[in-house]
């Protein structure tokens, strides 16, 4: 079986200072990879590397998927001055079949015309997670997805990720809050 992501000997430098080096891993379909490390060890950089945003200073990174990568980073990628409906339109999710289901799970279906700026941090995070819940990609990359989420939503997230793994998708994530599902771990 072909791995979704194959990394060999990745290293990254900022201003000639090594952030990390010699990182190799493989991600098969239906598997998850938990990237662990201290603050500033380069978890975010590694995840962005897999997305193709950052280029490794050395090493090989092969990603085998025809579809776009689903990436949830620190930044929510939602517009503060627009309401939820418009934001969903921008994310191209407003006609998705499962949209109503997740809106009602997160109690957001009645506040579609509220500006994002009036929502709490956690609610904003939930909207940005809709990008994950309604994704159509093979590879999911999550950078601290649980920040600001209540335990209830964390459980929803974990259930969803388990379902995605069963569907044969690959997940790479980093999280300081332990997510309760099977994952290989990679320390950097």
């Amino acid at each position, binding site marked *: 079986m072909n791995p979704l992501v194959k990394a060999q000997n990745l290293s990254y430098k900022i201003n000639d200072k090594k952030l990390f080096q010699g990182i190799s891993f493989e991600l098969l379909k239906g598997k998850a990879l938990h990237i662990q490390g201290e603050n500033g060890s380069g978890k975010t950089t590694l995840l*962005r590397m897999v*997305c*193709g*945003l*950052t*280029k490794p200073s050395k090493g090989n990174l092969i990603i085998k998927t025809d579809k*776009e*990568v689903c*990436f949830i*980073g*620190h*930044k*929510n*990628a*939602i*517009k*503060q*001055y*627009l309401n939820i409906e*418009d934001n969903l*339109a*921008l994310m*191209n999710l407003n006609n998705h079949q499962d949209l109503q289901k997740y809106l009602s799970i997160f109690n957001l279906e009645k506040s579609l015309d509220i500006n994002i700026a009036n929502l709490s941090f956690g609610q904003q995070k939930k909207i940005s997670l809709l990008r994950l819940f309604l994704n159509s990609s093979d590879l999911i990359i999550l950078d601290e997805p649980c920040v600001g989420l209540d335990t209830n939503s964390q459980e929803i997230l974990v259930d969803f990720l388990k379902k995605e793994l069963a569907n044969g998708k690959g997940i790479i994530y980093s999280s300081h809050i332990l997510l309760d599902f099977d994952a290989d771990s990679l320390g950097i």
Partner: protein
Amino acid sequence: MEVIKFEFLKLLKKSRGWLGPILVFVLIMIAYPLTVEVSDIELSQSFFSILWIAALLVTMLATEDIFLEDFNDGVLEQYAILQKSLSFIIGSKVFVYWLVIGVPISIIGSIFCIGTTNQSALGYQILPILLVSTYIFMNVFSFGNALSLTKGSVLGTLVTLPLLLPLLIILGKVVIAINFDLNYLGFLFLLLGILSIIIIIIPMIISYIIRAHLE
């Protein structure tokens, strides 16, 4: 097309983003007659230099956070991992900005031109020139603001304004050409030629710069 639609939605909902520059333009157009003695000759003599400078300043203000906002809230990194070409997205972004801000400015500018010089033919002739030149301004300032993305637009302006000086010279020549009934169409085609080069190259350069910023 979807990209253009979304960019429209984003820009139109943010009224300070598009209405602000247009109003500033109108204010400059109203303000400059106050600084000269009100005699028609002097007004129409200085009108065009004020017009070009105002168009320059306002396009500069308008493109100030063309990429900054998307960069800060993370939309830009989502764009960058899409399979669509980033330079196409950037090109359509600049196009939308021009459509929403540049076109009204050009129309208002030519109305003021008719009002100041009392020659309606001049207004019609200046309108296409304004349309093309604001588009060029928008492109070049977007380049500058992409360079100085997180460092404020002063740096971007400092860096790109020298690049625009040849264009200002051409615009000055255009006015002379119109006044003396010379080769007006030639100038228009010259500007269109410059635009057609810029419109392709600048988005490519900007997308390279933005990718470097996201790294």
